[in-house]
């Protein structure tokens, strides 16, 4: 049995016509001798009646003051894919072949039980294989599974979870290909919103696509790329709405022909730069230890960390920033008897002023706060490590009058923290200077 997994994202099943076109692809796969498995996302994007975000909003609007229980949120979020799978299996049957909607649990997907962001522990494809044996095409709900320890519960797999489902099912049934259908012609060298004429990459390695995905490319979730890499499953990203050949993702390194694979942007960040230049080394160490201990204890995710003789800087996701500010702004850090520091994020808040009024001996440690930041990244397996790369990109950004607050780099990528308002322009100018010469 030659099994092929076809995953359809929200826009690919958003309308009756789109579902008919997607079902036709499943039909065509059958005609070509494959035993296809469909994996579907919830119908449409934000605003569509059964889209995941719509369901979450319905739930939260009941009482915005009441904290959402993760288990209940997972139940409602999972409904989007269940509705989608049931409707899509009907679309398949209307083309004259047998299909059955299957929940994540029925598909044998077991998770670690973490509501809202579960990881797949195992996949038992017994039911899926039995359906295929009977010539019934399974239409699997993406983004969900059941905890190993509590199989009657539903957990969701986090953002991009339907890609993860498709890759996991592909690995479990030893599929000869997993095809991810979306609304663009494959993986491009930049987000088409920034660079409308960005070329499509025809062949990429798992490493390249994982790096792109981690740094913000939205066509494929990094967890899916990692599973595909781990189990060596041939992966394709294709356009639901065109006959384009798409992007093939393979295990061998195919990046030798290009310096730069792509430019991405990601994240809405707030950058904090603490001025510690006037502190003694001992005081600074005590302060830094308590600062990081607080961030660790309360689960604040830090990015682009920087320690220098002048101070310490890091970025925080905007979604988390309110929590971080509640935690850190006005925090009094005792250093020694009669010697306390108070953290101040940006201009002194009422909380900081009140603390200073009450504890007159406290010394403020001020962090310069830069709101509205984002990160653009340049990815290329062979580019970094060559002399002059940083200089070249920083010069391009400087000439385009894009301010750079911080940089970070890895073996295959380099990232720049910039004002969010400059995102598209920065991506475009870096892309125009680096990519045309490198894509083959």
């Amino acid at each position, binding site marked *: 049995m030659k099994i092929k997994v076809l995953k359809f994202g929200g826009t690919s099943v958003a309308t009756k016509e789109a579902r008919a076109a997607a079902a036709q692809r499943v039909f065509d796969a059958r005609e070509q001798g494959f035993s296809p498995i469909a994996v579907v996302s919830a119908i449409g994007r934000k605003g569509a009646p059964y889209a995941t975000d719509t369901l979450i909003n319905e739930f939260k609007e009941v009482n915005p003051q009441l904290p959402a229980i993760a288990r209940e949120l997972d139940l409602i979020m999972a409904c989007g894919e269940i509705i989608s799978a049931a409707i899509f299996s009907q679309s398949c049957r209307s083309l004259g072949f047998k299909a059955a909607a299957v929940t994540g649990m029925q598909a044998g997907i077991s998770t*670690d039980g*973490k509501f809202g962001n579960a*990881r*797949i*522990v*195992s996949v038992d494809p017994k039911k899926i294989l039995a359906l295929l044996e009977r010539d019934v095409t399974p239409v699997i709900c993406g983004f969900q599974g059941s905890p190993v320890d509590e199989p009657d519960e539903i957990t969701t797999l986090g953002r991009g979870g339907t890609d*993860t489902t498709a890759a*996991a099912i592909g*690995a479990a049934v030893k599929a000869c290909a997993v095809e991810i259908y979306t609304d663009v012609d494959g993986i491009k060298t930049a987000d088409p919103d920034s660079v409308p004429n960005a070329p499509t990459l025809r062949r990429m390695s798992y490493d390249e696509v994982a790096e792109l995905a*981690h*740094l913000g490319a939205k066509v494929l979730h*990094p*967890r899916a790329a*990692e*599973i595909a890499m*781990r189990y060596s499953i041939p992966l394709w990203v294709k356009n639901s709405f065109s006959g384009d050949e798409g992007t093939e993702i393979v295990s061998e390194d195919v990046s030798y022909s290009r310096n730069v694979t792509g430019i991405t942007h990601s994240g809405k960040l707030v950058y904090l*730069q603490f*001025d510690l230049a006037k502190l003694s080394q001992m005081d600074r*160490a005590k302060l*830094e*230890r308590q600062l*990081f*201990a*607080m*961030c*660790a204890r309360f*689960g*604040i*995710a*830090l*990015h*682009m*960390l*920087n*320690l*220098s*003789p*002048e*101070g310490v800087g*890091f970025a925080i996701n905007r979604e988390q920033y309110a929590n971080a500010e509640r935690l850190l702004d006005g925090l009094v850090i005792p250093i020694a008897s009669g010697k306390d520091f108070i953290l101040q994020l940006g201009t002194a808040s009422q909380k900081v002023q009140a603390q200073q009024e009450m504890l007159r001996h406290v010394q403020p440690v001020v962090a310069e706060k830069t709101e509205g930041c984002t990160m653009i990244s340049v990815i290329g397996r062979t580019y*970094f*490590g*060559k*002399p*002059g790369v*940083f*200089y*070249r990109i*920083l*010069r391009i950004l*400087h000439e385009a009058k894009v*301010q*750079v607050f*911080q*940089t*970070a*780099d*890895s073996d295959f*990528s380099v*990232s720049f923290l910039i004002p969010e308002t400059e995102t598209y322009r920065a991506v475009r100018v870096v892309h125009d200077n680096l990519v045309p010469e490198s894509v083959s």
Partner: protein
Amino acid sequence: MQAGQTQFEAPRGVSEIEVRHGFAQVHFVLGSRELTIKRLEVLKVIAEAGVSHKYLQLTQNGLALIIAEAQVAEMEELLNKAGITFELNKGRSMILVKSIGLWEEPGTIASIVEAAIASGVQVDHVGDMHDRMYMVVKGEVAEDTAAKFREHLTGRKN
């Protein structure tokens, strides 16, 4: 297996701690006026001389970067010739803490830095990417520090 890790998906959390030896940190203090232009001037000199570097960071009044120890003499000559003042920390090693999806793991980077500070080691240079965090420390303390991290962050002694 740590909580949250699975056998099916790639493991999350800290997967590996590696020590790489033979680095030097170059730190440039350039002042606050026309800082961007001054940074570019320094990087241009280095680029035109064909010296590669990694882990560039923008500091409040300059920049810092890491080079291979083998490039120190060349870098010193180059910068002296160009009249650029700099501080050089030789004999450094790099501790790489690898963790897939590090940026999405709440509190992980903070806990690694806290562990470093608690160990009393002086960290000259630190940075992070989505899959790793690195710390540059004196070569002679790198292996011991990495062993402490390994035990603290992965529960493994070696």
